[in-house]
C-alpha cells in the first residue's frame, strides 16, 4: 500500500498567511495594478491631447474649405506647374558629375549613354603661410556649362600650386606654364575649373584633385569629340 503525502502537506503551517489574507488581498493587488495601468494610459493620453503627439495634432497643410470645394482649380494649377518644371528639365546631351562617387555620366535626354570613372576635389584646405589667403579644394556644385574646349592644354599654375610645393611664387607669367600635366584635352566649365586628363590614372575613382575633374585618356577623348560647347554640366 502506497503512502499518501497529502496529509503531511495539509498539516504544514506555511499556506496559512495567504489563506488569512484571502480574497481581499488578491482584489487589492489587482486594483493597484489596474490603477497604475489606467494612470499611465491617462498620462499618455493627456500628453498626446496637449499636442505632443505629431499625428494627433491638426494638419498644418489642411486646405481651406474654399479650396476643398474647387478640386478642378487645383488640378489645373498642378498641371501648369508640372509643365513649367518639365520645360526646365535638361534635354538633349548633358553631363552629370557625382563628386562623392567620382562618376561622370553622359546623358542624352533620359538615357545614360556613357558612365566614366573620374577624380574630383579632395576637400583639402591649404593656407598661405605668408598671408591670410586659404584655398579649399572642392569641386564646385551646381549647374555649369562647357565654356571652352582646348587641345593640348597648358596648365598655368596658380599661386596655391607653388605654395603647396613650398616653392616661391614666380613673378613672370611664363614661369607658371607647365605642359602635359592636363592630358590631351581640357573642357573648361568656368572659374578656372576644367574637365581634363591626368598622369595619375591609378587614382581615378578617388577624391584627389584641387577641384577640377580628372578623366582617363580614352573617356576624355570621347567627351572632347562628343560634347559640344554650351553643353550643361550638373555637379553634385
Amino acid at each position, binding site marked *: 500500500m502506497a503512502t499518501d503525502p497529502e496529509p503531511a502537506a495539509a498539516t504544514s503551517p506555511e499556506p496559512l498567511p495567504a489563506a488569512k489574507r484571502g480574497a481581499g488581498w488578491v482584489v487589492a493587488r489587482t486594483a493597484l495594478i489596474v490603477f497604475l495601468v489606467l494612470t499611465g494610459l491617462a498620462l499618455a493620453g493627456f500628453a498626446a491631447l496637449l499636442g505632443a503627439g505629431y499625428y494627433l495634432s491638426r494638419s498644418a497643410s489642411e486646405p481651406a474649405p474654399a479650396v476643398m470645394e474647387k478640386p478642378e482649380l487645383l488640378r489645373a494649377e498642378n498641371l501648369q506647374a508640372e509643365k513649367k518644371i518639365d520645360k526646365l*528639365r535638361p534635354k538633349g546631351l548633358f553631363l552629370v558629375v557625382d563628386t562623392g562617387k567620382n562618376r561622370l555620366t553622359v546623358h542624352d535626354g533620359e538615357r545614360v549613354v556613357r558612365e566614366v570613372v573620374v577624380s574630383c576635389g*579632395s576637400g583639402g584646405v591649404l593656407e598661405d603661410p605668408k598671408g591670410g589667403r586659404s584655398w579649399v579644394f572642392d569641386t564646385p556644385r551646381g549647374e555649369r556649362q562647357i565654356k571652352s574646349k582646348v587641345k593640348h592644354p597648358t596648365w598655368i599654375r596658380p599661386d596655391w600650386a607653388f605654395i603647396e610645393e613650398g616653392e616661391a611664387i614666380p613673378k613672370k607669367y611664363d614661369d607658371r606654364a607647365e605642359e602635359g600635366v592636363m592630358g590631351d584635352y581640357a573642357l573648361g566649365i568656368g572659374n578656372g575649373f576644367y574637365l581634363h586628363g591626368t598622369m595619375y590614372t591609378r587614382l581615378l575613382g578617388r577624391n*584627389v584633385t584641387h577641384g577640377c575633374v580628372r578623366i582617363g585618356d580614352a573617356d576624355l577623348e570621347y567627351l572632347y569629340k562628343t560634347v559640344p560647347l554650351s553643353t550643361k554640366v550638373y555637379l553634385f
Partner: protein
Amino acid sequence: MRRTVLPALLAVILLVPTAPARSADDAISLWRENRRLAAEVVLAATPKPYFELDLEHRHISLKTRGMVLFEVPIQEQGLWGRRLAVGPTSVVRRDALARPAVAIGDEKNPSSLDDQLLELADMPTTYRLGLAGEVEVEVLPLATGRWPLWRQRLGVWRWQLTRPLVTLRQRRERHETTAVFLILKPEDAQRLYWTLFEGLDGILIPPR
C-alpha cells in the same frame, strides 16, 4: 428575401460614409501636391541642386531642374512635435559628433593618401540636420546584426517615450520644434551628409 436585403443594406451602410471621405482625401492630396509643385517651380528655376525630404513616401532625393540626381529610401522614421506643412525649407545646420577634416595629400605617394583625402566613406553616418522652420532631423544608420538591431529598436522606443516630455516643455516655453528621426542605410546616410550642405534649399513633405 432577408438573405438578399441584408448584404445590400450592409453594403450601403459601408459605402455611403466613405464617398465624401474619399473626395476630401483627394482634395487634400491635390492641395499637398499643389504646395509641393509650387515650391519646386521656384527651386527648379535656379541653377542650384535642391533636396526633397518626402516623409509621406519615405524617401529623400536630390534634384536639379526637376531631374532626380539620386534618391535614398528611408528605412524607418519618427516624428514628434509641431505639425508640419508641405513647403520649402533649407539646411541651416549640419552637426556631427566627429566632423570630417582633411590635410593635404601627396598624390605622388598614393599610400599616404588614405588618411589625407575627404571621401564618401569618411562621412559620418550619425548626424543632425537643422532645417528652416525649427525642424530638427536626426539621422541614424540602420543597425545590422540581431543585438545592434534590438539596441536600435530600444533607442527608438526610448525616443518615442521621452520626446513628448520635450515637446511639452517646449510648448510651455513657447518655443515649439518638430523632431524627426530617420534611419537610413549607412552608405545612404553618408551620401546624404556629402550632399546636404548648409544653405541647400529643399522641399519638405510631411506625412499625412
